[in-house]
């Protein structure tokens, strides 16, 4: 069990390292170094910096040195919590993305919660009442969920909401809470606004999980122990919920690890369409404006948080599935 945790932790660390390298590559990719871009940005806003200042910045980031040194310097800064400056805002990156990063995770986790709470009962229902009208309806919705990319779904729902209900369904807060400090009322407002993005984000995953759950449970229901349980006179709910559902849940849980990155990834583009104040819109503007420290940091933080989420879901999996615990 301990060796399982250590192996997972090691893998998580390797992944984080890979993500730092990729983020660094993204920061480095545009032509010219970022000091040049920074100077240009400052000049266009009317506050040029002197040649000496520019040279000092270059030295700080080690721009005259080889890539590996630059990477090491950048990593050193990141580890100390210094993510550089966001050009367009002229503020440290950390200040800008803090809240938005939290909201990204809130939206993603809400989508996953919703996926589970919806997919589990429907999957059980579809398996127990195989080929019933309800089963067909859910299969149909499932196909829609798989075939309609989530940003298109967002687009279409927004259009319908605008056209037929004359309301805007975007955003995560009502206007009066937008800039208000956190309070219970604001959280309530957030929860109300969260349902739709969570539904849109979770639909594809829900569809897939229903299919997996249904197939797994159907396999289990055909096994002799279910017949035995029935013959012993257990109530139908007990027969189904106590053993087959638990057995069918294992592969269900093991997909979480891959599902989390997928949802985070999707939340970026859905946020853009729905205008959610997550890091999604920020990432796009940063990339378009070649604000590479901001963009690189967002990619880095998203990656790191995803890896952490995956690690946590691995631990949950271990808790659910005794086979992993026993294997050691």
């Amino acid at each position: 069990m301990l060796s399982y945790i250590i192996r997972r932790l090691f893998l998580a660390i390797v992944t984080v390292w890979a993500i730092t390298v990729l983020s660094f590559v993204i920061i480095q990719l545009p032509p010219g170094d970022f000091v040049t871009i920074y100077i240009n940005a400052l000049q266009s806003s009317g506050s040029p910096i002197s040649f000496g200042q520019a040279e000092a910045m270059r030295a700080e980031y080690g721009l005259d040195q080889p890539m590996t040194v630059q990477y090491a310097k950048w990593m050193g800064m990141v580890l100390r919590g210094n993510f550089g400056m966001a050009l367009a805002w002229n503020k440290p990156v950390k200040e800008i993305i803090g809240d938005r990063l939290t909201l990204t995770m809130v939206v993603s986790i809400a989508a996953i919660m919703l996926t589970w709470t919806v997919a589990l009962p429907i999957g059980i229902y579809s398996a127990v009442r195989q080929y019933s009208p309800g089963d067909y309806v859910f299969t149909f919705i499932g196909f829609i969920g798989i075939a309609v990319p989530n940003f298109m779904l967002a687009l279409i729902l927004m259009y319908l909401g605008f056209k037929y209900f004359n309301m805007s369904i975007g955003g995560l807060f009502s206007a009066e809470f937008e800039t208000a400090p956190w309070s219970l009322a604001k959280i309530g407002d957030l929860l109300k606004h969260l349902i739709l993005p969570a539904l849109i984000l979770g639909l594809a995953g829900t569809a897939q999980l229903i299919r997996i759950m249904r197939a797994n449970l159907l396999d289990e229901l055909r096994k002799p122990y279910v017949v035995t349980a029935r013959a012993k006179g257990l109530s139908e709910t007990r027969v189904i919920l106590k053993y087959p559902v638990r057995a069918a849940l294992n592969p269900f849980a093991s997909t979480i690890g891959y599902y989390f990155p997928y949802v985070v990834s999707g939340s970026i583009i859905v946020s853009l369409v729905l205008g959610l104040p997550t890091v999604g819109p920020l990432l796009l503007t940063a990339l378009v404006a070649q604000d590479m420290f901001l963009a690189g940091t967002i990619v880095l933080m998203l990656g790191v948080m995803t890896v952490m989420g995956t690690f946590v879901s691995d631990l949950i999996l271990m808790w659910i599935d005794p086979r992993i615990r026993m294997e050691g």
Partner: protein
Amino acid sequence: MANQTNAPDAEERISVATQWQLMWWRFRKHALAKVGAIVVILFYGVALGADFLAYSDPTFVEAQRSLLSPHGIQWLDEGRFAPFVYGLKGTRDPQTFKRVYVTDPNQKYPVRFFGQGFEWQLLGLKTDRHLIAVEGAKAEEVLFLLGTDQLGRDLWSRLMYGTRTSMFIGLVGVMLSLFLGILLGGISGYYGGSIDTFIQRLIEVIRSIPTIPLWMGLGAALPKDWSVRQVYFAITVILSLIGWTELARVVRGRFLSLREEDYVTAAELAGCSQMRIIFRHMVPSFLSHIIAATTLAIPAMIISETALSFLGLGLRPPAVSWGVLLQDAQNVQALAISPWLVIPTIPVVVVILALNFLGDGLRDAADPYG
């Protein structure tokens, strides 16, 4: 199995049938998969014949005719079958002073099939024939089956070219992923041991990185002065660098299970070279699985390209793809004024469904125990 009822005859047929025949028989019974196959073939047909199916030059800009709503073809003229379109007359709205176009019932332009339109080229052959053409005026000026975009370009014609780009980027991207997947998955499954562990960990690492932010970063970093072709190729490479993991997993799984088969051991004992064992003995037995997995991988490619281009970080104009077309439909205000801009979602959804059905059918057909 097929025709189990008419006993000995059918049984004999099955026992001598090749693997592909068996697959075909099983596939035939899958109604949804057959529909999927037909739709996919249709879409690739559109992709190939985009020039012929379009009637307007997709790059023809006419700001005067921006955001025209769809105008259908009138099929009957005074009770007789004689398809035509009405001309459009521009007037000023007396209240808003906006330029509006109304159909002019006095002006009729006959529609001809296989008529002449803008010139196009295929394999060095020049022609100006199109499925639909207008006589007496340029199609760009009077025929708007699905309306026009902001710059007055005809949506139908652009959709045809967009289908070509999107369908082929799916195909090319999957081919690249397939190459990487077979290479790395094959090495992983065939050699096993520490190489296997390394590649498996690599796959896990890649899969735990959220893809869209990464793609956005890489897509935005492509130099602005690259040509359409270069960007197209670069985007395909970016997409397949991450897309190969699923295919590699399938290939590895097959290799692992086949490595233990008796006939592979027999081939080894008979002194076959490794290359011969892999390509002559192992690959044919799981080729069908690979084809099914490949079919199922195309939709993901198409969605990814559409998403990237939709954000403006994928293909860039003048390239036309479904994602590029949907860029115009990015905000609700635009949609409220011109809802037809959202039409490109339809082919995306249809082709993804069709590919999924086809892939599911192929996978079931390829699995002898299914």
